[in-house]
């Protein structure tokens, strides 16, 4: 009896070993800043993808293949990114993941389009998890590009709806990074506010150099002297943290409505001052009621694995889950087959269902407006503060959805 168990075990082990040996690696290149001023955005995202890949691999991989995430540092430079992209393709990666910086994403979309046109049979797909310039899924849309984050106009819809409901806000100040993303945010804020609350005056529209400003005090003092009741910013990474740090130092207590207030360290920089002044619109509401135990377990696992960061890049998990599902539905890991399967694909995300709109490859999902509060289940930045959903802060997927002008060219 004993020997049969042993034999069975040995057989099982060797079977596993054979399977493991047969499983190929599926390389996915993660190209983002992993050093320098913006690494505080790139690194937690990289870890999110690594963890998401581990989960999928433990579950049998993608059509039996094991995902390997190659982390490539682009130092947030479009030029460097193209070098890394070529390196990734040479190493056999057929899937490119990038998100930080629309200037970088734009260069990658362009390069991927050219590569795919010149190398039929060796196509690569680009999964954009954070570059939110609306053009990428509108006039500049591409079959090879999929965006897994809500774009600027969608996020701004949430912010402006909230402002429209606050009668006490009469003056708004816009501050952003001086590149295509900052401009898009300012443009969206101006047009949407003019439509929803024409009585609101925009008292400042400032763009500052990207990732170069070390001291935001002069900017904050400008905001204070403008008499603004609220600030809208699309800043991310260090530019987000330092901006709110300077605001906290100056004792400013007006709401900061942000895309990326959850940037690592922003809450810690503000401390108690963040309560009811720092707002964020995102796809994540970690302390929301009726979130599945499974999702909460993931949040806890992330914190345990990477104690320096918090569960923030929920999109990373949505991206790989959806990719896994699409590849298995297509029965192939070939980029073209996966791309076709991704169109219209839906997954049950941890915070509401997410669907990849076929016509422009823009993910549609519910968004949440959250603000900082004490006494939450999942605090961030190793403080006792965390993100809490504001009243009326749920924006259902169909309310966040915006029409597209995309006319996509699909390969036969």
């Amino acid at each position, binding site marked *: 009896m004993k020997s049969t168990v042993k034999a069975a075990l040995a057989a099982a082990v060797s079977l596993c070993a054979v399977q493991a040996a047969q499983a190929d690696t599926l390389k996915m290149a993660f190209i983002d800043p992993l*050093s320098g001023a913006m*690494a505080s955005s790139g690194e937690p995202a990289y870890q999110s993808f690594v963890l998401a890949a581990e989960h999928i691999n433990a579950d049998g991989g993608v059509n039996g293949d094991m995902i390997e995430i190659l982390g490539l540092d682009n130092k947030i430079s479009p030029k460097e990114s193209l070098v890394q992209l070529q390196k990734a393709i040479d190493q056999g990666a057929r899937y490119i993941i990038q998100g930080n910086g629309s200037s970088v994403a734009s260069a990658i979309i362009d390069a991927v389009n050219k590569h795919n046109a010149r190398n039929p049979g060796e196509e690569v797909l680009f999964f954009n998890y954070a570059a939110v310039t609306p053009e990428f899924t509108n006039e500049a849309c591409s079959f090879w590009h999929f965006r897994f984050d809500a774009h600027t106009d969608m996020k701004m819809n949430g912010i402006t709806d909230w402002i429209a409901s606050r009668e006490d806000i009469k003056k708004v100040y816009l501050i952003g990074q001086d590149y295509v993303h900052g401009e898009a945010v300012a443009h969206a804020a101006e047009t949407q506010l003019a439509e929803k609350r024409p009585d609101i005056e925009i008292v400042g529209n400032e763009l500052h150099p990207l990732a170069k400003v070390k001291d935001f005090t*002069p*900017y904050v*003092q400008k905001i*204070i002297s403008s008499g603004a009741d609220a600030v809208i910013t699309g800043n991310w990474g260090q530019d987000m943290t330092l901006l709110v740090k300077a605001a906290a130092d100056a004792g400013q207590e007006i709401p900061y409505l942000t895309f990326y207030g959850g940037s690592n360290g922003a809450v810690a920089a503000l401390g108690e001052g963040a309560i009811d002044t720092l707002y964020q619109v995102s796809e994540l509401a970690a302390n929301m009621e009726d979130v599945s135990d499974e999702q909460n377990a993931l949040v806890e696992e992330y914190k345990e694995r990477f104690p320096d960061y918090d569960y923030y890049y929920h999109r990373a998990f949505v991206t790989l889950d959806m990719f896994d599902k699409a590849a298995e539905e297509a029965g192939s890991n070939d980029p073209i087959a996966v791309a076709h399967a991704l169109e219209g694909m839906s997954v049950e995300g941890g915070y509401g269902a997410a669907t990849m709109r076929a016509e422009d490859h823009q993910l549609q999902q519910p968004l949440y407006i959250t603000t900082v509060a004490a006494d939450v289940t999942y605090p961030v930045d190793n403080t006792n503060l965390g993100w809490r959903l504001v009243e009326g802060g749920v924006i259902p997927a169909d309310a966040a959805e915006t029409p597209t002008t995309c006319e996509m060219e699909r390969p036969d």
Partner: protein
Amino acid sequence: METLVFALLNGAIYGLLLFMLSSGLTLIFSMMGVLNFAHASFYMLGAYLAFTITEGTSFWIALFLAPVLVGGVGMLVERYGLRKVHAQGHVAELLFTFGLAYLIDELVKIFWGRTAVNYRVPEILDFPLFTLYGAQYPAYRIFILFVAAFMLVALWYLLKKTRAGLIIQAALSHPHMVGSLGHNVPLIFMTVFGAGCALAGLAGVIGGNYFVTDPAMAVQMGPIVFVVVVVGGLGSLEGAFIAAMLIGLLQTSAISINASLADIFGFIGLGADTELGEITIASMAPMLPFLLLVLILMIRPRGLMGDREV
């Protein structure tokens, strides 16, 4: 009015920090005859050492210990590196400091990681000192102001009013004469190099938590420091002081100005909706020091107070 007051305050603090960095560089330049490319790396080293010492003990110990350590490293570099290279001429020295800058950069990344460290303002100074026109002013900024002013006075007193200062000044301009008089010139050089590095380290200690302590801080500060030294006049401490304050004030006040090029040059017909007219003064702030550099080199190549050509 309030814009002016804030611009003056912030500009003065930034200017003094710049001076603290460039005073060491300009001293070392007078001595070696070449610019020390690794100077901003010593600034970074000061910030990182202060971070580590603060973690273990307290900020106040770091305030004294970190500059001393950086100065020590500087002296070792001079004694065992630069002095040997000196025989090969200026180009070799320049290349040596260039390589050293990269070396320190990489070492910092290995020891402290590639992302910013959480080097914070000490709690005892982390409170608003006063409220000015509705904005609170952090006490730490005023603390920087005092440390920098103290250093400025101490440096001036040391160089101009003491015997040691006289010998240093003499050794910088006439080393052979001073040597013949029986002074140990190599020792003086080593001390000056160490002191210059210690000043950069001190700037790092108080600037690291005021700004951000990350591996990019040396690269970002380096060019501005060179601008200060060149604009001020190579080898002139007074010039470096004037240039540092000028650049500090220029950069911070430019951000506060709400005008565009069209508002200023409107009279010669520059429209507000043209590409050039749309540019705001605030967005030009990071460019201004370099504009100043180019203008000075064109109009007055020896700098504001310098006595020799670049």
